[in-house]
């Protein structure tokens, strides 16, 4: 407890004294988050009413969660792979190695300082697991930390659903650190569906060991202000890291995504594909950064950013960037933003398809290259449902209904079948 208190105190001190940001570009382009509450209500207990309600509510999209954190509650129903701990009970070594290293960022420091619970996910060597966790904020902030360790030759499919309870007007902050062992495979799907009054902060650090693969698919729909910082490092020879990002924003939502793809060893592949559809007066900043370290010979790096604006008030800045320290590599980046093609809309509507549905089709088509990368068919459907819901209702935080429109175009006969997590 003393170790954590000390770290938390230092982190809070840093959070309070760090300059807003140092870069002029950052000051000009990046969103500033509002003052954050110095409080958090979490604890370890079992199945409180609010967490059970949230669990049931999100259950309608066919997911049985293995662990839930939020609303003053935290528990795991699958302790074989997931443990939920009070951070004060964690060792100083763990904190220093896993999460405290992120504290160069003041928002990370804030989340770290006010995390009450941490989630530890461990898939032992050569085993495989398919896990789903639900995290949600209520009137009080949710700050939490997740560490994922995937052993050599193991396989993990992890879904993180980030949501808000009714009337939530606070903040949601989560730190993830993922380490994937040799010859292992991890696919992590994260769905952000917080309320319109929520400030969202999300940080991922991933490290792929020799010949390992990490796919990180994220969909950002919720929150009024969303700040995301990810570092995807292909650390071991022959490893591959891949970040696929979807942003769907409405009203005055603000999204600020910065994802770095790092080639840190020979024969590695690192890529970031980001696509954003913005409606209303939503704004987005998409910054993908490719870093090819000295010694990362025969590596590949690829950054792609695309923006699609449905309304005149929406705005997006795509800023791909790279730093190449090695000659024997291949690195490319591209970005493009365009308004909705009126000819495409006219064409679709000329077939009797009404405007909202036509826009849905066009948005789903735009995102198809990313959604189709999601390994799980049910996850693809849930992601598509979230996009549809956002286009239709133009507000974040709704629990999407699984429709037939996308499913019939893509599903095979065994939709939801054969996977114990998903109902028939």
């Amino acid at each position, binding site marked *: 407890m003393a170790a954590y208190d000390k770290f938390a105190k230092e982190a809070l001190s840093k959070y309070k004294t760090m300059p807003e940001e140092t870069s002029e570009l950052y000051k000009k382009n990046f969103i500033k988050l509002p003052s954050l509450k110095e409080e958090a209500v979490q604890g370890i207990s079992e199945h409180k009413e609010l967490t059970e309600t949230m669990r049931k509510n999100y259950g309608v999209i066919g997911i049985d969660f293995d662990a839930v954190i939020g609303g003053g509650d935290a528990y795991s129903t699958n302790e074989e792979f997931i443990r939920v701990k009070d951070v004060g009970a964690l060792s100083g070594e763990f904190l220093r190695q896993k999460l405290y290293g992120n504290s160069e960022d003041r928002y990370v420091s804030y989340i770290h300082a006010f995390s009450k619970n941490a989630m530890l996910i461990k898939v032992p060597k050569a085993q495989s697991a398919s896990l789903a966790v639900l995290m949600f904020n209520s009137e009080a902030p949710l700050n939490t930390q997740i560490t994922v360790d995937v052993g050599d030759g193991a396989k993990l499919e992890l879904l993180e659903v980030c949501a808000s309870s009714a009337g939530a007007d606070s903040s949601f902050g989560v730190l993830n650190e993922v380490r994937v062992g040799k010859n292992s495979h991890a696919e992590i799907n994260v769905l952000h569906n917080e309320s319109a009054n929520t400030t969202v902060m999300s940080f991922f650090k991933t490290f792929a060991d020799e010949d390992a693969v990490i796919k990180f698919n994220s969909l950002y729909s919720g929150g009024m202000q969303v700040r995301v910082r990810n570092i995807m490092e292909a650390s071991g020879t022959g490893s591959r890291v891949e970040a696929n990002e979807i942003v769907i924003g409405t009203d005055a939502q603000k999204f600020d995504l910065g994802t770095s793809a790092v080639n840190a060893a020979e024969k590695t592949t690192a890529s970031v594909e980001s696509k954003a559809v913005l409606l209303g007066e939503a704004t987005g900043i998409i910054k993908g950064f490719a870093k090819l370290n000295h010694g990362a010979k025969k590596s590949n790096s690829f950054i792609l950013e695309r923006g699609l604006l449905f309304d005149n008030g929406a705005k997006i800045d795509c800023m791909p960037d790279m730093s190449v320290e090695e000659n024997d590599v291949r690195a490319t980046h591209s970005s493009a933003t365009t308004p909705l093609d009126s000819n495409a809309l006219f*064409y*679709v509507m000329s077939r009797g*398809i*009404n405007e909202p549905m036509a826009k849905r089709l066009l948005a789903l088509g735009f995102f198809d290259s990313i959604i189709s990368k999601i390994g799980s068919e049910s996850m693809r459907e849930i992601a598509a449902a979230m996009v549809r819901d956002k286009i239709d209702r133009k507000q974040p935080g709704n629990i999407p209904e699984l429709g037939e429109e996308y499913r019939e*175009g893509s599903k095979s006969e065994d939709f939801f079948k054969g996977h114990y997590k998903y109902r028939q």
Partner: protein
Amino acid sequence: MILEINDLHVNAGDKEIISGLSLTIKQGEMHVIMGPNGSGKSTLAKAVFGHPGYKITSGDVLVDGKSVLGLKTDERAKLGLFLQFQDPVSIDGVKFLSFLNAAKRSYSPEMNIKGLMQEIKNTASELGMDEEFIKRSLNYGFSGGEKKKSEILQLAVLKPKIAILDEPDSGLDVDAIKVVAGSINKVSKQSNIGILLITHYSRILSHMEPQFVHIMVDGRIVESGGTGLIKTVESVGYDSFVEKAQRVK
């Protein structure tokens, strides 16, 4: 169904493209509009469907006696109108099947997906198309001929009451023209569809039996008649019709 175009005037920006055009098409009839480049044929087709790039300055478009000018494009389609595009847009990521499924549902909410797929496969086979194309993105990476056939396939599946076909023959080789013309004939007869076919050339018409032929120049119809007009165009071109239009001005 009856589609009436009454003294229609259409602008693109400040320029008038359609200048007082009138035409009536009944379900089951086949009309042809021929005319030189730039005479306003494609503008007419898009204006009837309410394309946002064109402004109707006067005149009216009626379906069964009711003006459709206040209706959105999809609402006009749901009345039973269909537009085959001369150069349909390619939309990456929107799968042809998902698109046609959504379109068919807008016409027939009770439609079932298996029946639709079978219908698509049968029609694709008749058009000489590989059925794998239904898994591809809408018109994306399609050749010119595939795009035309894709449009005719949509016509066959959606079964409208009146269809405006904007140059279904352009870019097709002689064999493909024959196949496309045969499909249009078959679909229009089976479903009693009224056709307004827009073309520059007479080749496709040798495989069809239109009852009405109209020559369009400078945004208006300068002459209407039977298939004899096709032969006139074949033998002397559009020069005499252009002169006639200039005299009328």
